[in-house]
């Protein structure tokens, strides 16, 4: 590991090249660059998640930590490592102090792997508008996680307002096992679905997105009914011919019940943030089903017809505070 104190972006680029040469690695093997925007307090969680994900995706990780924007003298500290705390890939942790934090792209742009897609992951907090953060503007894919925000529902609505193709949210990724189970349960029914109910926490963004996805696909209103639990506890579907399907989550097992038939029980993996991130990095293009589900939840139409390109909007938190 190379640690550089009070350094410059150019020195970081050189140090990374030197580290790569001694490690014997080459750039051609990199599938993507992941830019993580995170606060110092969450760095441990991010490390663990990236360790899992980088075992599946050969990538370069740039961790951007913005500190003390009001410090008068800007400063950059960097740690460069290959095959260490962040898994087998290359990682650069960049701590930016003072006004440099507002120009983080000046450090990250030369560090992006050549011609590989760039994914931005907003871990601690999602900017109100992704266009406010140049790191999000340069990325081909943006990953947010509204569940970590103060008001997840409001934040989800804001994500729809701010949506551009290439955005996804981890609250959507976590319901893939539910969606896969529902889709295969629907494989054996041959009549129209008349009603579906999602039971769980009506203020959980994942429960809402699942309902939104079902409503977008089936063309019917899908409510989220309150049931004990923090998340989704069951889904019931009713069909024209009287057939019903119930999918229940009890303690990491997914039970599929149908009338006159044996229950089918499947293990429901307890996925870590790293597993979910790994699934997210498998897709580096726009996710239309997510756009539809998000649109159905928030009532905003044609999200996937928006332009995938954002233009940077200058935003200075210091000025925002002084105005307020």
């Amino acid at each position, binding site marked *: 590991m190379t640690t550089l104190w009070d350094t410059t972006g150019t020195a970081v680029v050189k140090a990374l090249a030197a580290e790569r040469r001694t490690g014997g690695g080459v750039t051609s093997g990199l*599938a993507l660059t992941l830019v993580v925007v995170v606060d110092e307090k969450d760095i441990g969680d991010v490390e663990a998640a990236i360790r899992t994900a980088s075992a599946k995706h050969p990538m370069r990780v740039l961790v951007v930590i913005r500190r003390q924007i009001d410090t008068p003298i800007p400063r950059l500290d960097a740690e460069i490592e290959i095959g260490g705390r962040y898994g087998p890939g290359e990682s650069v942790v960049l701590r930016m102090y003072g006004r440099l934090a507002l120009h983080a792209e000046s450090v990250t742009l030369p560090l992006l792997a050549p011609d590989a897609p760039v994914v931005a992951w907003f871990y601690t907090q999602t900017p109100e508008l992704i266009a406010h953060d140049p790191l999000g503007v340069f990325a081909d894919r943006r990953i947010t996680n509204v569940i970590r925000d103060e*008001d997840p529902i409001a934040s989800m609505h804001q994500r729809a307002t701010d949506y551009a193709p290439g955005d996804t949210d981890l609250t959507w990724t976590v319901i893939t096992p539910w969606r896969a189970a529902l889709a295969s349960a629907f*494989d054996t029914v041959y009549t129209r679905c008349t009603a579906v109910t999602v039971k769980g926490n009506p203020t959980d963004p994942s429960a809402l997105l699942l309902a939104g996805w079902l409503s977008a696909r*089936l063309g019917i209103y899908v409510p989220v009914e309150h049931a004990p639990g923090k998340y989704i506890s069951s889904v019931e579907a009713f069909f024209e011919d009287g057939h019903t399907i119930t999918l229940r989550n009890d303690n990491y097992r997914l039970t599929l019940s149908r009338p006159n*038939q044996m229950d089918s029980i499947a*293990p429901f993996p307890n996925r870590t943030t790293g597993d979910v991130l790994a699934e997210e990095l498998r*897709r580096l293009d726009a996710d239309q*089903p997510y756009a539809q589900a998000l649109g159905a939840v928030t009532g905003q139409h044609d999200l996937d017809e928006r332009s995938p390109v954002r233009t940077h909007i200058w935003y200075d938190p210091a000025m925002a505070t002084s105005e307020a």
Partner: protein
Amino acid sequence: MTETQTEPSAAGAPGPGTEAPTEAPVAPASTPKPDAPPGTPPALVGNPLRDPRDRRLPRVPEPCSFVLFGVGGDLSRKKLLPAFYDLMHRGLLPPDFVLIGFSRPDWPGGGDFEALLRNSCKASARTEWDDEVFARLARAITFVPGNFDNDADFDTLKRTLDEQNSSHGIKGNTAFYLSIPPALFPTVLQQMERTGLADEKAAGGWRRVVVEKPFGHDLPSALALNKLVDDVFGAGDVFRIDHYLGKETVQNLMALRFANQLFEPVWNANFVDHIQITMAEDVGIGGRAAFYDATGAARDVLQNHLLQLLALTAMEEPVEFTAEAIQIEKLKVLRAITIPSDLENYAVRGQYDQGWQAGERATAYLDEDGIKQGSTTETYAAVKLGIDTRRWAGVPFYIRTGKRLPKRVSEIAVLFKKAPHLPFSHTDTEELGRNQLVIRVQPDEGVTLKFGSKVPGSMMEVRDVSMDFLYGEAFTESSPEAYERLMLDVMLGDSTLFPRNAEVEASWRVIDPLEQFWATHPPQKYRSGEWGPTISDDMLARDGRAWRRP
């Protein structure tokens, strides 16, 4: 982000505190499923939750059952059962899935069936061990002990299958895997016919059968075998496994050729000098003496794996990426293969002698258990083939396979012609060879491109360098085992990666004349741990070429 709460909650947003409206909140994303008349097959209706753009959802087969004949056998323990474990682990099996094992309960090591299943999954599965997954797999499996020639045992099997299918709500979809010696095929197929196991009409769903190589031992026997299986099941429902085709790199060969602009323009006789296809094994015949001595390298490997690889390398672009279109192109190539007129010099056989391999003493083929003295079965075969098409006229395809070679490796190497004119002096390019494109099938799956490059320094000196693409390095998921992919395709009814009848027959038309010639020409000995007999090297040297060292 407080202002977002005043965001107008559009009609139908099922957010907190929103009145549930009676109408759909959004226009449906796709046309809703039309009302299907009763009895419409599921394929015609479509699942509204499936969207081709939704690539997060796995391709899961419809509910079905799988019957494994010979479940206690080698292949089943080492490959098939672990493949089902891996499929289950990856969530690729339908929620209603039944696996029935049928064989004599006399597998090596003894113990009950669950112990066999546990041991084989623990030893050979690709994904990590998970008790929950195993418990679910164990619940899905039923073992039926029995003999293939016993009517009562087959009746039990039939009854068990029907019971399991109805209790799991499976509408008659069943695949049968014949992991048994071909000699037993007539018995088993006859039993299946007697009990109506293969009858799709009676079952109300699809019935498919999977057979392993060898697909006969020459053209007449292959024709007889094909007829036997096709008569019971119907040609479209027979899946012939060539596990090489399930490998990721082999499928990548098509992506490489037909998805790129870079390679196809030079993929012809104008630019290609010759092609080498190698499948080398470092092991001997192991415990398969009886089978191997009757078969030999040419029938065991050349006829199926190598000719299939050759067909994929040489075929024209299929009009679409479907099973039928690809098979049509492969068949065209297989039928255009020519064998050399000078078989004496261009069809080589070898048999391994004693020697040293990887630091251990290796016995000669003739000293292996169960091989009779004086056996003339080959363990190495190499042949020069041609393809009579405009694309390949005059380009030799050298293909070779052997046992007890220095390492286990399979690859397809395309060697290009040398540049027609070199502006450099002769001494500058002494170390420059042919440009090569190598597709590594196993191990280290990937692609290598070899070309000349200047050696740094004040002199003009050109030397070969290679550019490597390694699957494990550039892709996100580890490649599934070939059997995983192929079992899944059988359940999905996708026959793209399975050779068809006609392909098997066309391959035998290539091999039969070689075998006839070899019948009167004993194989040449080669030391274990060497790259085959010297006459094989002479074969290429005669043409001014040399085998690439893989």
